């Protein structure tokens, strides 16, 4: 189990300039949804974008602290 804040802290470290939201989907602190909008996703396929998130949270996914992770990645509109 983890807090959404703890997950967010890990992601912020890896993607400091991203806009990140973490939600506890079930109220059981182990099923999460991560929404992340980041310029660095530009030009990458969705699978590559999701793999970057999964790799970042790999220890928590592997030790079961995170049981399920739904990922939504967004490429910000060009300014």
């Amino acid at each position: 189990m983890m807090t959404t804040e703890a997950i967010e802290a890990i992601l912020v470290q890896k993607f400091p300039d991203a806009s990140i939201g973490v939600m506890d989907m079930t109220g059981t602190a182990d099923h999460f949804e991560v929404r992340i909008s980041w310029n660095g996703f530009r030009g990458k396929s969705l699978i590559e974008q999701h793999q970057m998130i999964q790799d970042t949270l790999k220890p928590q996914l592997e030790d079961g602290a995170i049981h399920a992770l739904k990922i939504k990645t967004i490429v910000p509109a060009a300014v």
Partner: protein
Amino acid sequence: MSDVLEKIKSEIGSNKVVLFMKGTPQAPQCGFSAATVQILNAFNRPFKGIDILANPDIRATLPQYSNWPTFPQLFINGKLIGGCDIVHELKDSGELKQLLDEAFGAA
């Protein structure tokens, strides 16, 4: 190289579209696999379903090979496209149709 890795590579090399899934396309054993089959069926393109419940060696090895932890896993032209969520997103954006058209030639 292990036999099972050889088998995986041969399947994704010899079939344009391969879905590694729980159950079969006719009888999926998991909601995410069923939803992905449903999306693929709507395109009327042939795909090969491989039941990982009946092939525990593939189930154990594929996630390391593809760097993707869960099933289903969709491959088009030998490349990992995604699981249920991504396939759904790519269907909505039109990219899935594009990938299938590229694989088979435009319908």
